[in-house]
């Protein structure tokens, strides 16, 4: 009995001891290994990051690999960032990409998020779907129609300039940003949009229902600038897929009015597609290269005049350029200057001698990468230098490009054409030259004549995708309409 008791007691004690030992075991470990492990995990972090850089642990010899660093930092952000802003991985990554590209120090290598890429594609194609009204905000912060574009759904529906938009599809747009209003009005072709409008002189607001269609941007404006001398004026706004065709039509119409001389206005033209520039230059040059593309690695590929495009008579020609004439504008003006087929009037151009290729990305964003340089037909690199005009004419302080009365550069260009036509003596241009010398001794870029290195025509790169490339707008608010 007592022996059984003792045995039972012994077992119980044994069990209790077992439980306690079991309970205490991790404690014993916690004093040793757990803290060790804790420390190890703390120390692991820098080591893990360090190991991303390579074998050496000397920080001064390390360079950080982009993808691995990004992954680690993004993981940390998602696990531990504490702040007001909710983490948006896509936006964070887009900014990381923008930073990556900025490091190259090339303003033309840049990232486009899906929205701006889509917009760029539309601009290059030269059309968009919508109603074709140019909108602006007035003094009272209301959105109004500045101008219904000719021959568009808005035009046909009887929308007039200065109509104030009150609502879109019955939804008030009061206080809304103009860009958001544009988004509401735009939509797929053949769908309807209902605008509520208030028209000056009409008592009650009224509705107009408009069917959205594909609207073409007008890339070209033209008129007879001098009726007596029959000097035509053609302004090209941008180089897209429609530009050359619209230029061709404009020239044909001016020729029908017996044009004898021409002013081509490339002022403010930020450029566009490379192929469009070659097409446009081909309207004026008879033969020879328009531009030489220098690929990565130094290989030079000249692009020649497309002779079937040279379907217009050769008239005395002046080309207006300014500091915003960039990219494709400089290809055309450079080719015309080197060939001598026309005279450049205005001020030194922007100086963008780089070619970008647009590469679409998996998520419908895209990246524009500078893939080549270009040189003028005589082999001049104009990057960061620009093209100096043959006749420097600084813009007058009150110059308004849409008002010929204030446009001293246009007046000079017309004089240049008149001299060529023999209507004015050469001395008629002296006053401009004198003024230019007073202004700043005239910055002239000398053309180094260098023969194209390689005669093979264009390489196999995706040239079709070559760059629109408006130069980046310096001030954000200026990109608002007006």
């Amino acid at each position: 009995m007592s022996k059984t008791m003792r045995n039972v007691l012994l077992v119980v004690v044994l069990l209790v001891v077992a439980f306690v030992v079991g309970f205490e075991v991790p404690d014993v470990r916690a004093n040793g290994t757990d803290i060790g492990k804790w420390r190890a995990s703390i120390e692991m972090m820098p080591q893990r990051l360090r190991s991303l850089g390579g074998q050496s642990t000397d920080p001064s010899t390390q360079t950080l690999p982009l993808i691995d660093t990004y992954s680690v930092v993004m993981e940390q952000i998602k696990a531990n960032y504490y702040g007001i802003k909710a983490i948006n991985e896509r936006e964070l990554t887009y900014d990381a990409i923008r930073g990556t590209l900025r490091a190259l120090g090339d303003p033309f290598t840049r990232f486009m998020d899906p929205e701006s890429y889509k917009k760029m594609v539309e601009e290059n194609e030269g059309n968009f779907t919508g109603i074709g009204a140019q909108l602006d905000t007035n003094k009272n912060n209301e959105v109004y129609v500045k101008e219904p574009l000719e021959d568009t759904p808005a035009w046909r529906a009887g929308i007039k300039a200065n109509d104030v938009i009150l609502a879109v599809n019955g939804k008030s747009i009061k206080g809304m940003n103009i860009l958001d209003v544009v988004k509401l009005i735009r939509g797929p072709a053949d769908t309807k949009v209902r605008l509520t409008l208030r028209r000056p002189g009409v008592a009650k607001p009224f509705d107009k229902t408009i069917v959205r269609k594909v609207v073409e941007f007008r890339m070209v404006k033209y008129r007879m600038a001098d009726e007596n001398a029959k000097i035509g004026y053609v302004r090209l706004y941008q180089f897209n897929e429609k530009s050359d065709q619209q230029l061709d039509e404009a020239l044909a119409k001016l020729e029908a009015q017996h044009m004898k001389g021409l002013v081509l206005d490339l002022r403010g033209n930020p450029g566009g597609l490379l192929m469009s520039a070659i097409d446009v230059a081909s309207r004026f040059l008879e033969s020879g290269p328009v531009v030489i593309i220098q690929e990565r690695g130094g290989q030079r590929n000249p692009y020649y005049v497309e002779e079937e495009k040279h379907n217009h008579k050769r008239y005395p020609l002046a080309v207006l350029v300014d500091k915003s004439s960039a990219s494709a504008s400089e290809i055309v003006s450079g080719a015309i200057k080197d060939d001598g087929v026309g005279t450049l009037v205005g001020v030194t151009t922007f100086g963008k001698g780089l070619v970008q290729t647009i590469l679409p990305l998996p998520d419908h964003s895209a990246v524009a990468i500078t893939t080549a340089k270009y040189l003028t037909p005589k082999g001049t690199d104009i990057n960061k230098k620009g093209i100096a005009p043959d006749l420097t004419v600084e813009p007058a302080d009150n110059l308004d490009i849409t008002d010929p009365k204030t446009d001293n550069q246009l007046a000079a260009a017309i004089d240049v054409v008149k001299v060529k036509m023999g209507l004015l003596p050469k001395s008629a241009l002296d006053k401009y030259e004198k003024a230019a010398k007073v202004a700043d001794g005239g910055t002239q870029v000398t053309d180094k004549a260098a023969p194209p290195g390689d005669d093979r025509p264009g390489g196999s790169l995706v040239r079709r995708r070559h760059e629109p490339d408006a130069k980046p707008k310096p001030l954000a608010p200026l990109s608002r309409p007006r």
Partner: protein
Amino acid sequence: MRTIHRIAIGVLVGLFFASGYAARKECARRQAALIVAKDNKAVFEGTRIASTRLADVSGDVDIRPLETLYTVLNRLREHYVEQLTVEDEGKMTHEAMRAMLAWFRDPNTRFIEQPERRVVLDAEHGKFHGIGAVLAIKQIWRPSKDKPKERVSEEHLVVVTLLPGSPAAKAGLKPGDEIVAIDGRDVLPFDPYQHVSDLVGTDRFRDTTDSQKRKMLDAEQKRIDEGIGIVEAEALLTGEQKKAVTLTLAAKPPAKPTRLTILPQDMVVDVVGDPRMETSTIGYIDINYFGSTTADEFAQALRELQAKSAKALIVDLRGATGGDMGAALKIAQWFEPGRNLAVLIKSRGRKTVIQVPSTNNGEPWRKPVVLLVDRGTARAPEVLAAGLREVGAAKLVGEKTYGNFTDSTLIDLADGSGIVMATGKYVTAKGYDYNGKGLPVDVQAATSDEQMKAAIKLLTGGKS
């Protein structure tokens, strides 16, 4: 029979051992969920991050953004007009991290280059560079004018405190001063164009002529082009460059902005000043910075005062800054061992109670304490002051503190650069949140003399 008994007992012993082990594990798990603030300084020095289980997030990692970045990098390597080098990629990584973290528009979250990283390290050891002022980027959020649903921020570079004897202090820079320009270059907020957007929205702008508008915008562009980013400005003034800088300080109109020229210099600051007996019974310890040696120096100072049989203590935290929570905890250990000092609120609703370690290095101080604070008291010293005040261990005398209770973590990158990231916010153990507001004091006093007098009065008055 006996064998079966033995086996049964053996199995039972095993089972009990296992259940004991399991019980302990469960206890440990629950405890760990509550508190992890052991006497382990490393936990508080920006390395805490390593303890986060990354597995928590790997499940929701979105592969698409990574794929986009990856494709961009590959395209650049293949097609960019210049062949990219390893150095180019290192630079690209830096700019990518800088831009990515700038997305947050958070003064406590940013990429830091190697030199700035070294400056942070030096500060931990009481070594300072530049003009000798602790600066902060003060951020103000307000609703956007043209997009009512969005908020825009505005950042100001302000002086939190001046290091004793620094060039900035000698030149007359004051806590609270706002630096608006350096060498004539405007200090630009995170979005320098916000100012332009605001300008465009004003009636003054709308009603003016087109050429006037153009002039105003050109002037703004020039200001931005020639300006200096606020983060860069802070780095310049606290970095290792030695050229004289001229600061323009904001003034309330009609007063004109003042200018100060300061010659930067390297300096070593006593993180803890020599202790002294302020009166026959009151000891005084001055702490200037919460860095890696602060706690040990404080301990030594306190022991000296104990040896001089001080009956009360004044700890001067005026102008004290620094982010070393380990130092704050070790100092708190002298007053309230084992108590909860604060609660750290982290992302995704996680909370950690910050517990003061139990004492193990001497007799705690149980006599009256006054902490002197002012608007230059920021970060770890603030957390310490808030915690000691809440448990009744100390009274606060002086001015309301600066109000930076954010917890930020430094992640070192392999090339010596780093990332600073906001990872939490400290509130008091009872849940009071003084972040952005500042910690109130028990006795308000404006000048240095008055503050000291008030402290002495409080300590002697308390006794009588």
